């Protein structure tokens, strides 16, 4: 390998095996796509109607308008907000699935699922203002599910989504209401984007972007409800010690990777793996069944069960290349179709489970709430059968893993802080931000992207910020990057944190009985769990009586790529956060759109995007944004 593709040592170790096995990886395909089309890169290719495709000449010599008359500003804005709608649809479909399952649980129709965290369910009911007196658990669950589903389908769109109003600071809700961007229901917000970007509809780039903000805020709603209802059903995560990276795939076990996003599938696979463990041992796997995670469903089961994380998005194919993965079970989102070809080189079963996500060449085991247990059992048995076909000559195990602590839900963070001050849990955090021991908070989110070296920017930025005493949270494939790099450990705190940050993390960690500091970066869950960080920020904002855009809090997505990331980034900006992108977004073809998103939007929401592809410079800019906010607060 002449070129560095990844900062992940296990990836470097596995790529030669992939080459030897004739497996084409994401990096091979990325090379073959070079150079990528300049028009698409700039966002000035419009394929919305069949008069086109139309392209704008970014240098002014050729056409400046599409066939319909749309200029670069209109085209870029339309393309961007269609991406936001895609991301919102993906997240909220996941959330709707959870809410419908909660409804079925309340009707006692969902065998295999229970309400594992009654307290969380009741706190959600309180948050939504639902009466609980005289209602049993199932009735409360039913009411929460109905109220939540109302946020998807509400007839009167002038009424705000409940999950929006009830989870954000009042001042923020009012600010966004004045802009006319508060969603009334999720499905309507997505449909509205498709309608207003249809040929001959909305052509005003600023109006289009406001539509994008509204849809992105609907994405926030979908994510918030998905996270909290998942906690109610599967349990609210608490700190757990586990391991991460490809070395978690074991030779003497039936290895099952759960990959995708929704815990509805992965949780049941874990349950059934435990039930069928003896069968695996009987089949010759003396260590029984070893469930490992990939991508965000990996984060879900890592947070709740301490299931080890095999890898994150970009290196998903390499989990199969180990030759010891017996089944890769997938649900939705970020699943590379190439897995079907990779598994053909090995014995691995690739199992799709959702009617909306099939891959030709995979085995499809349809998964529905009613028959979840049966399907999960079938999946685990397929894995055991595959194990029997494993070819030892093709096994390329990795020996690389790192310890990782996960499970830092909002509740877990508050509980750790309560150990310091039981009467006023947020006070220790707030005091340390005010006195400058913690300069601010940065939330790392988002994907992997082969446009940059995998995991490199995440870890490089984090090391810089740690030294500058910034408290860091992470979700999604960003969290995966940190876990694999060993940065989610107390040892990383000792090694990289600045003195004051180290002292705070140590004080909290020891008070919480961890006999050492909290990890350098707190794992808050999957990408759908970014709203956990908003919950922490909202609690802080409410406590000191300011809006979110005043807090020394920023977000960073150094390797963003998916439409979900477009939606998350946009709601982060809409909620008032300075938001860093480490990959150049496909908007530069419009100077106006670029200016609005990096400057103009500040006047509307207080948040803004900035692009910086160089990690050290990105860290400096994140720190600068935090210091500006501190100055604004006079601290």
């Amino acid at each position, binding site marked *: 390998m002449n070129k560095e593709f990844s900062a992940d040592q296990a990836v470097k170790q596995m790529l030669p095996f992939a080459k030897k096995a004739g497996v084409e990886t994401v990096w091979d395909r990325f090379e073959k796509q070079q150079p990528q089309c*300049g028009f698409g890169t*700039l966002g000035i290719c419009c394929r919305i109607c069949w008069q086109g495709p139309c392209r704008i000449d970014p240098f002014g*010599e050729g056409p400046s308008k599409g066939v319909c008359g749309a200029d670069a500003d209109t085209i870029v804005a339309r393309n961007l907000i269609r991406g936001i709608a895609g991301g919102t649809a993906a997240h909220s479909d996941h959330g709707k699935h959870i809410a419908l399952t909660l409804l079925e649980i309340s009707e006692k129709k969902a065998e295999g699922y229970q309400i594992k965290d009654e307290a969380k369910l009741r706190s959600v009911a309180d948050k939504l203002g639902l009466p609980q007196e005289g209602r049993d658990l199932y009735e409360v669950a039913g009411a929460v599910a109905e109220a939540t589903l109302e946020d998807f389908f509400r007839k009167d769109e002038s009424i705000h989504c409940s999950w929006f109003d009830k989870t954000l600071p009042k001042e923020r809700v009012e600010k966004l209401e004045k802009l006319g961007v508060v969603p009334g229901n999720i499905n309507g917000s997505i449909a509205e984007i498709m309608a207003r970007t249809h040929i001959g509809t909305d052509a005003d780039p600023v109006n289009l972007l406001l539509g994008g903000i509204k849809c992105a805020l609907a994405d926030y709603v979908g994510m918030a409800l998905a996270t909290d209802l998942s906690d109610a059903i599967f349990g609210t995560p608490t700190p757990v010690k586990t391991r991460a990276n490809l070395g978690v795939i074991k030779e003497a076990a039936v290895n099952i990777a759960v990959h995708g996003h929704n815990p509805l599938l992965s949780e049941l696979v874990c349950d059934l793996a435990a039930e069928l463990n003896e069968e695996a041992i009987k089949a010759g796997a003396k260590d029984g069944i070893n469930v490992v995670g990939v991508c965000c469903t990996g984060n879900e089961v890592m947070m709740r069960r301490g299931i080890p994380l095999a890898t994150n998005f970009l290196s998903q194919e390499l989990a199969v290349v180990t030759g010891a993965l017996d089944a890769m079970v997938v649900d939705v989102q970020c699943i590379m179709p190439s897995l079907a070809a990779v598994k053909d080189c090995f014995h691995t079963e690739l199992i799709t489970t959702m009617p909306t996500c099939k891959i030709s060449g995979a085995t499809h085991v349809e998964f529905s709430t009613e028959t979840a247990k049966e399907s999960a059992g079938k999946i685990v048995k397929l894995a055991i059968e595959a194990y029997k076909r494993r070819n030892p000559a093709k096994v390329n195990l990795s020996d690389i893993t790192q310890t990782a602590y996960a499970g830092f839900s909002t509740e877990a963070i508050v509980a750790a802080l309560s150990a310091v001050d039981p009467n006023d849990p947020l006070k220790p955090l707030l005091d340390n931000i005010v006195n400058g021991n913690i300069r601010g908070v940065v939330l790392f989110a988002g994907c992997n992207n082969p446009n940059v070296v995998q995991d490199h920017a995440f870890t490089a930025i984090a090391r810089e910020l740690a030294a500058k005493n910034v408290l860091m949270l992470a979700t999604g494939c960003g969290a995966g990057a940190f876990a694999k790099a060993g940065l989610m450990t107390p040892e990383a705190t000792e090694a990289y944190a600045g003195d004051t940050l180290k002292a705070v993390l140590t004080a909290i960690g020891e008070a919480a009985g961890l006999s050492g500091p909290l990890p350098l970066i707190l794992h808050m869950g999957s990408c759908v769990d970014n709203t956990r960080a908003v919950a922490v920020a909202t609690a802080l904002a409410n406590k000191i009586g300011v809006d979110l855009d005043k807090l020394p809090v920023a977000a960073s997505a150094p390797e963003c790529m998916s439409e979900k990331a477009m939606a998350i980034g946009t709601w982060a900006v809409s909620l008032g956060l300075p938001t860093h992108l480490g990959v150049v977004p496909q908007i*530069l073809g419009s100077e106006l759109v670029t200016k609005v998103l990096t400057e103009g939007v500040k006047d509307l929401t207080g948040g803004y995007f900035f692009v910086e592809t160089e990690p050290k410079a990105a860290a400096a800019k994140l720190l600068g944004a935090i210091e500006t906010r501190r100055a604004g607060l006079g601290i």
Partner: protein
Amino acid sequence: MSDQKENYFIYADPQKCLGCKSCELACGLVHAETDLFTAVLEGYKIRPRNRVVQAENVKVPLQCRQCEDAPCAQVCPSGAIGQRDGMVFLNRDLCIGCKSCAMVCPYGAIRVRSEAQGKGDGRIKRAKALKCDLCVEANGGIDGEACACVKACPTKAIALVDYEDLIQRSMEARAKEIAAVASGREK
């Protein structure tokens, strides 16, 4: 002079060209010595030496054919254009922007424009003749694999043609066909 090599030239297979204009962007950027993001953010006017044109249903990029008896070289009053190192070379330092070459080029492959970052001073606009230079400046010589348009083409429609190599390969291909037919008869 009798064994002098014929000129190289860029040729695109119209059956493979999708009209995506990636070659135009790549050509403009390599000659502006910049990348796409910088060019857009700095507002450079990039100047491709090729142009994708469409006639009927055929789309294809056109650029200088590096002619042997090149009309542009014949009419250039300042001696800026002439044969050199396997191509028709345009010395921009000598060009006065008279457009004679552009008028006589049968391919329409020469444009007289100011360069990307060039600005006039009130008397002149710094416009010069621009044409395909086979990326010799960027690559330090003729290298077919390294030509910006060749690298940029997603369907591999564009190639640098070595005329003699081309006819050699054509002859060999026909000879193989003849051989196949002949051996079929023998059986």
